């Protein structure tokens, strides 16, 4: 297993939501890849399309309005977009796991923890001694007193504990990729750290790739190897954590980094950037960030920007901007 084999390869992904006012594209041609054992961060404000990207990969877009309009999602060479629903069901949980944002709502309130973990085990063809396996899985994600907790209901546990259980469920099938959609947002700061450590630990033990979706650059810095920055359904910058943090090559990334004075602090909104992200049905032909961009000129507003190498020409560092060259 070499670090540079891409396990998940998303190409030109486009996702639409059919609203009553008409269809809008929420993911507009996103491409990236994740290597085995790698952690990729996807960063962006709410509405940037990062969660929709995750849901597209899992193919669990909101029904009946969401659909993948184009592109491919190759997992280990198989294009998930082409799979039937039942084939996809066999992929989920076994080959890609997912951790959702809010542990308080992502466990089913009417079933015990054990029931939900065991269900995940069953899906992955585990037979016999399921309770014991569930307990050991819970132990693996550091759930204290797992033998007792396995019979508990979600409402009897703390948020951190619940998110650990969700983690346990996501690794029950030893997936090749885990998508973590802002898994720590709903947790207290101290618990957050513990949880991130847990993810690292899991990755070390299993060698799984992680796609970590967040708007918290601090976490990215701490956890990820590479990151992509999304804005209005597009990737505006991509590169290793070091390259992007040291030489941000898109004005939006710069603004993001500026809005975080201390790398360890999370912020909910990027107050430092004036204005709001555009409503997706109002996007024109040019760069979507142009209306808020201090560097924008007429070309930015009318012509879609090209993808150019990052400022320091680090390997795999790109930005989608007319002005990268002009940035100091």
């Amino acid at each position, binding site marked *: 297993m070499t670090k540079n084999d891409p396990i998940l390869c998303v190409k030109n992904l486009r996702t639409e939501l059919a609203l009553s006012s008409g269809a809008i594209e929420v993911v507009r041609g996103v491409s990236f890849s994740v290597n085995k054992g790698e952690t990729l961060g996807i960063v962006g404000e709410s509405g940037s399309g990062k969660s929709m990207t995750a849901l597209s990969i899992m193919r*669990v877009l909101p029904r*009946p309005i969401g659909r993948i309009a184009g592109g491919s999602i190759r997992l280990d060479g198989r294009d998930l977009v082409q799979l039937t*629903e039942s084939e996809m069901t066999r992929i*989920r949980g076994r080959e*890609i796991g997912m951790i959702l944002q809010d542990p308080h*709502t992502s466990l*089913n309130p*009417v079933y015990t923890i054990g029931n939900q973990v065991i*269900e995940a085990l069953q899906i992955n063809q585990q037979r016999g001694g399921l309770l014991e396996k569930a307990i050991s899985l819970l132990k693996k994600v550091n759930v204290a007193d797992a033998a007792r907790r396995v019979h508990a209901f979600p409402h009897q546990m703390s948020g951190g504990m619940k998110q650990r259980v969700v983690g346990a*469920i996501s690794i029950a099938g030893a997936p090749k990729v885990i998508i973590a959609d802002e898994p720590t947002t709903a947790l207290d700061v101290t618990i957050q750290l513990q949880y991130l450590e847990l993810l690292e630990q899991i990755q070390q033990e299993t060698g799984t790739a992680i796609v970590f979706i967040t708007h918290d650059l601090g976490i990215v810095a701490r956890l990820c190897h590479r990151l992509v920055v999304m804005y209005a359904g597009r990737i505006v910058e991509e590169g290793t954590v070091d390259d992007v943090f040291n030489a941000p090559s898109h004005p939006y990334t710069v603004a993001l980094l500026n809005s975080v004075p201390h790398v360890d602090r999370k912020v909910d909104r990027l107050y430092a950037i004036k204005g709001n992200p555009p409503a997706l049905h109002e996007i024109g032909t040019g760069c979507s960030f142009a209306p808020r961009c201090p560097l924008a000129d007429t070309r930015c507003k009318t012509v879609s920007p090209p993808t150019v190498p990052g400022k320091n020409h680090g390997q795999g560092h790109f930005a989608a901007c007319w002005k990268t060259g002009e940035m100091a």
Partner: protein
Amino acid sequence: MLTFLFKRTLYALISLLVITLIVFSLSHLSGNPLDALLPDDATPQQIEQVTRHLGLDRPIWVQYLTFLQNAAMGDFGDSLKWKGQTAAEVVWERLPATLQLGGLALLISIVVALPLGVMAAVYKNTALDAVATVIALLGQSLPAFWLGLVLMWIFAVMLGWFPTSGYGGLSHMILPAVAMAWFQVAALTRLTRSAMLEVLDAEYIKLARVKGVRERRVVWKHAFRNAAIVPVTYFGVLAGSLLTGSVVIETVFNWPGTGWLAITAIQGRDFPVVQTVVLFFAVLFLLANLIVDILYALIDPRIRNT
């Protein structure tokens, strides 16, 4: 949990006591049993004689206390109309017929409405959803007696598939049960659909999907059990409506149950039987609601553990 149930039971008993008072006073206000029992040409002597015979000459509160005391022992007095039987016997004999019919109607409601509501939610905005909506709306827009008669004419008289009316086996029960259930199907489908819609948006449904649970299992295991709270709440109301509905449907289909009995007893001013029927209905309703409370606790551990 036990305290919860205890409190519920206590409330139910208090309600029941108030109900006995209401029932007793109403039935006594509603006229004299003589009015129906005596022939058109009754003589004064005959009237007096029957009055004394029935104990109607005692003060009303004495009659109530006697009634309450006896009722507590399961004795509701003798039927005035069905001679030789106590009111409890009269009602008890008709109860199975009502429970059979009501049970079948309940079964039809559940078997039709729950899947229909669930599917309508899962396939929201599709043709199936539209069909479910139409069924639901039609059911709530037709008086049951009319629906019953129309069903009788189409399926019994014109097609001859079922007997028109009367007491009997399953074939006798289908038309009245369908007529009775339709309104409930309508209500229940709507409730189930909207509850499911809400639940299907929940994060735990997303989690179930992403962990690879098959769609059918997502719907029935993960979503339905959570949505079930809403239809279960409705079962309490449903039990009451089915009993009330039995009054009309049993009349149309000549089904000798308690609903039919109640009408006959009121027309005949048979107090003891009227009282017993109403109390039976009330007790069944309160029981149904107790069961609903228990079901709640079974479905939702959050209630169970508080």
